[in-house]
């Protein structure tokens, strides 16, 4: 066999090998490219959807405050707001399943125009306020309770100013305090023996650098009593359109007090009917905590809710499943919150 034939044979073999290998590599890379373009398109689509939900009021624009109507188009922005990412207090409250006027998941999907896409919305406070009872000491007329308050953001302690409210039977007190650089503070309250039963400690924490970063925490405890608190679901409180709606179960009880607390203000709620109370429109940049105490012959209890009803988790649960997540800083009633919109479940 001539040398040139051998040379040609090897050259052809080498070339065919190169072509086959490069084709295989090219196919793999092209598949990756097509997948990435598809991901990019989905990402853009979901991002546009997120922006639409947060920057539009939905239709009708007052669907949040009117409990009799649901949205035909889903949007959470506050009506008439000139600020971006400012959400409506009632629209967000109606996403919370604890609210009696909450939207169902199918209603949210229909209003958002999503048929084959799952949607999840979570809103959380900028800071986490955790409260624990650290000590108590008894005297003949009263009990002194000491609470440990920890304020953190992403797990790191935050130096804040605190405003603490204590509510018990025929007892209401408040005081200002602060947390140190590691986010820890202590609060003492002396409860008289006469006001036995369920007691509630409401703590508001405000970051020094921005008053819009205000969060709250609530701690319920028994004072000289072993009586258990009735189920929250039995005695539901639903704030909407600056009105607090009490569940009909309250009709068997006498409502003793109804309070609204924010970082800087407290107010007694005035009854507008047997089951409704007017919530004051406090313009302060702070969430509100609404506290109701009620009793009958044998039971005394204190129930509470927040307004806006945040933190909340609405829609699909994407735990252990892949989803597109978009995080935003949003403002509700002048207070900053973290909002995450998640999309997933689109057919491949």
């Amino acid at each position, binding site marked *: 066999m001539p040398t040139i034939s051998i040379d040609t044979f090897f*050259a*052809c073999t080498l070339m065919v090998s190169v072509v086959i290998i490069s084709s295989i590599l090219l196919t793999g890379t092209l598949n990756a490219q097509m997948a990435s373009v598809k991901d990019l398109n989905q990402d853009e689509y979901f991002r546009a959807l997120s922006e639409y939900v947060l920057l539009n009021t939905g239709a009708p624009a007052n669907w949040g405050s009117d409990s009799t109507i649901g949205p035909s188009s889903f949007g959470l922005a506050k009506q008439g707001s000139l600020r971006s990412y400012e959400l409506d207090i009632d629209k967000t409250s109606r996403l919370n399943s604890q609210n009696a006027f909450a939207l169902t998941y199918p209603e949210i999907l229909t209003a958002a125009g999503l048929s084959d896409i799952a949607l999840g919305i979570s809103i959380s406070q900028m800071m986490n306020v955790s409260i624990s009872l650290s000590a108590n000491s008894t005297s003949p007329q009263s009990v002194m309770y000491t609470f440990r308050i920890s304020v953190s953001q992403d797990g790191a302690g935050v130096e804040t100013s605190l405003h603490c409210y204590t509510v018990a039977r025929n007892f209401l007190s408040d005081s200002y305090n602060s947390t140190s650089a590691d986010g820890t503070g202590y609060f003492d309250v002396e409860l008289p023996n006469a006001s036995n039963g369920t007691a509630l400690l409401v703590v508001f924490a405000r970051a020094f650098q921005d008053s819009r970063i205000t969060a709250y925490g609530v701690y319920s405890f028994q004072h000289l009593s072993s009586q258990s608190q009735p189920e929250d679901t039995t005695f539901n409180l639903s704030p909407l359109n600056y009105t607090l709606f009490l569940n009909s179960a309250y009709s068997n009880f006498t409502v003793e007090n109804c309070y609204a607390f924010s970082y800087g203000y407290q107010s007694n709620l005035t009854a507008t009917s047997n089951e409704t109370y007017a919530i004051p429109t406090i313009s302060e940049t702070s969430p509100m905590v609404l506290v109701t105490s009620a009793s009958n012959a044998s039971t005394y209890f204190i129930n509470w809710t927040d307004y806006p009803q945040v933190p909340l988790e609405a829609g699909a649960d994407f735990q252990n499943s892949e989803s597109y997540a978009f*995080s935003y800083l949003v403002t509700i009633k002048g207070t900053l919150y973290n909002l995450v919109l998640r999309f997933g479940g689109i057919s491949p």
Partner: protein
Amino acid sequence: MNFLRDNRGQIRTIEAIFASILIFSSIALIPSLKNVMNQNDQILSSIARNVLITLDQDGSLSGLIDNGNWTGLSSLVASLLPSAMWFNLTVFDENMQLLNENQISSGTPVSGNIVGTDYVCASPSQNYRIYIVRLQLSTVN
């Protein structure tokens, strides 16, 4: 006729065609890699824009710049960003002259991809000054 029977250059032509295919395929792949990077950039850019809009909503951004309170601005930006995110904020006047003499940053520069977003804000004070704020973000692994 001799010219038609002369096939000595065919294999080189085929080789050139295959080489061209390989080169053009490689070139075609470059935009896809760029797109993948853009997806992460878009997330960072969106976060930066959201933070700057939030800062400017109540006038605190221009207020802190007016007062030259760079420490306050730094802690405020840090409180609005996730802890696992590096940032660097630079403030310019309308002539792009640097205003912050101190670095407004969450620490030493990171080696990862850094995305910057420019934002124009106006001071509501009587001077009506215009500031250009550049926020650079990167994720810390």
